[in-house]
């Protein structure tokens, strides 16, 4: 009961705040006059609904101003970069980043396509092929009806990306993804494979031949044996190894086996940092019809970039094209970003015609 009493006491205490609050009558009348005058002014005014109220802090605060200008700056910057993507010429004019430099800074076109489609919820595999034709292949994972439903959308998206980069050299191939599962050996074949691999290995060891791998493919009826050692050693034992392997197959009545004796050495090379620039050069030159580029390769000593084109050396414009490609690459290599990577190591650029003549 006490509690309830206290509650009501507290409540009445609060209520008293209302009546305890005194406002000078003259002030009240003064404010009323102000309001009525303002209303009268509004009446004379036609579009009175747009009139601003007198709230003093209608002014935009400094923080807001800063925020707005920040956003505006970000948008401007975005437009700048955006327009640079749309037009490489624009890029040159506004920021001095060469065409190939822009490609160097961004994702490769197939990754871009993959990421964009994935982000939009399409499950796809993407690939790019330069030979015999320049093709961008997008395989849609899913059922036939799904494929039919989204095919056009996917095509539009990819074409949009290619267009935004100014890539016109590719034909687009959108297809339905089919799983190519590996052939699984049956029990008999597994047995055949295991038996032959063990037996051949034993026999070769007995004869003291140096090898590192034996692989038997019972479906192709082939045995792959890799020899370890010098070329001379390989040549000296090659036939004997083949003969030994065939004897084993014969002994187990496995007919028609072929033997493939190889000497493959895998050398691990540390990638030259100069090769970093190649993907951008390749993508940039291959993706536009105007460059007529069919291949990009390099030699490490001395480091040279070799560009193969589809133009004949007898063509009158061959030299111009050669010069154009070379200057495009030079602009890129001498840009600030790239020259810091290359550390001033000289790079030779060779542009070849279809008939393999230097045209630059």
């Amino acid at each position: 009961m006490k509690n309830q009493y206290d509650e009501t006491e507290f409540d009445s205490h609060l209520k008293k705040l209302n009546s305890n609050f005194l406002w000078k009558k003259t002030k009240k009348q003064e404010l009323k006059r102000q309001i009525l005058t303002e209303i009268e002014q509004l009446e004379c005014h036609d579009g009175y609904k747009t009139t601003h109220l007198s709230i003093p802090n209608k002014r935009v605060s400094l923080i807001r101003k800063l925020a707005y200008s920040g956003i505006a700056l970000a948008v401007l910057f975005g437009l700048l970069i955006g327009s640079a993507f749309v037009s490489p010429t624009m890029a040159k004019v506004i920021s001095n980043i060469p065409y190939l430099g822009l490609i160097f800074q961004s994702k490769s076109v197939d990754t871009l396509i993959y990421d964009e489609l994935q982000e939009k919820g399409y499950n796809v595999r993407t690939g790019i092929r330069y030979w015999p034709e320049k093709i961008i292949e997008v395989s849609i994972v899913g059922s036939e009806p799904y494929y039919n439903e989204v095919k056009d959308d996917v095509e539009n998206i990819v074409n949009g990306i290619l267009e935004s980069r100014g890539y016109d050299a590719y034909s687009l191939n959108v297809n339905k993804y089919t799983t190519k599962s590996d052939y699984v050996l049956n029990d008999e074949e597994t047995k055949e494979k295991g038996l032959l691999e063990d037996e051949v290995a034993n026999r070769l060891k007995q004869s003291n031949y140096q090898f590192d791998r034996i692989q038997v493919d019972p479906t192709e009826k082939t045995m792959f044996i890799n020899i370890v050692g010098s070329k001379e050693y390989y040549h000296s034992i090659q036939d004997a190894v083949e003969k030994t392997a065939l004897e084993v197959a014969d002994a187990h009545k496995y007919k028609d086996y072929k033997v493939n004796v190889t000497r493959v050495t895998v050398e691990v090379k540390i990638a030259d940092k100069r090769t970093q620039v190649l993907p951008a050069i390749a993508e940039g030159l291959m993706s536009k019809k105007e460059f007529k580029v069919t291949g990009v390769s390099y030699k490490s000593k001395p480091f040279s970039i070799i560009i193969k084109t589809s133009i004949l050396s007898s063509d009158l414009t061959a030299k111009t094209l050669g010069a154009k490609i070379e200057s495009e690459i030079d602009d890129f290599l001498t840009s600030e970003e790239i020259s810091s990577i290359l550390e001033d190591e000289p790079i030779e650029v060779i542009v070849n015609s279809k008939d393999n003549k230097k045209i630059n």
Partner: protein
Amino acid sequence: LGDYRKEDISDWYDEHSKSVLGFILLMVNNYQQAEDLTHDTFVKAYLYYDSFKHYSSEKTWLFSIAHNLTVDFLRKRKPSMFFKEVFFMKKDHNPLPEEVVRLKEDSYELYNALGKLKDTYRKVIILRKIKDFSIEETAQILSWSESKVKSTLHRAIPALKKQLIKGGYLHEESI
């Protein structure tokens, strides 16, 4: 054409302006701002007279205008207040100008304690307990659901008591 409007506003002002001013004053703790916002409340009521649908009393409607204006004001004031507090290392106290507005002494502690509560607590206490609006009316003014009004008030009252104890105005035994 606008005469009946003006008359209505004039009548409403006579009847409710003090209450509206009191509400805003408790919200913003600054007399001059409260007066400006009261001015704007009645001007706005005139401008949007046509949208007053008589679903609620004109008092509730005026209070919801006042509430919206106050919330806008507080929202915009916040950053500058923050800097003021940081740079001067203290809250800004605006004593009431005695010549125009006065509070009887036995309500001073409440006024101060309310000023220290967070906005949502403060306004729900003012509307429900001081201005005596019903739950439904309070919900209309704040654009809250009725259950939000109830639950916020439920939490606001103990917070206010705690604040009063902190200030030494209320003894723990009396809760």
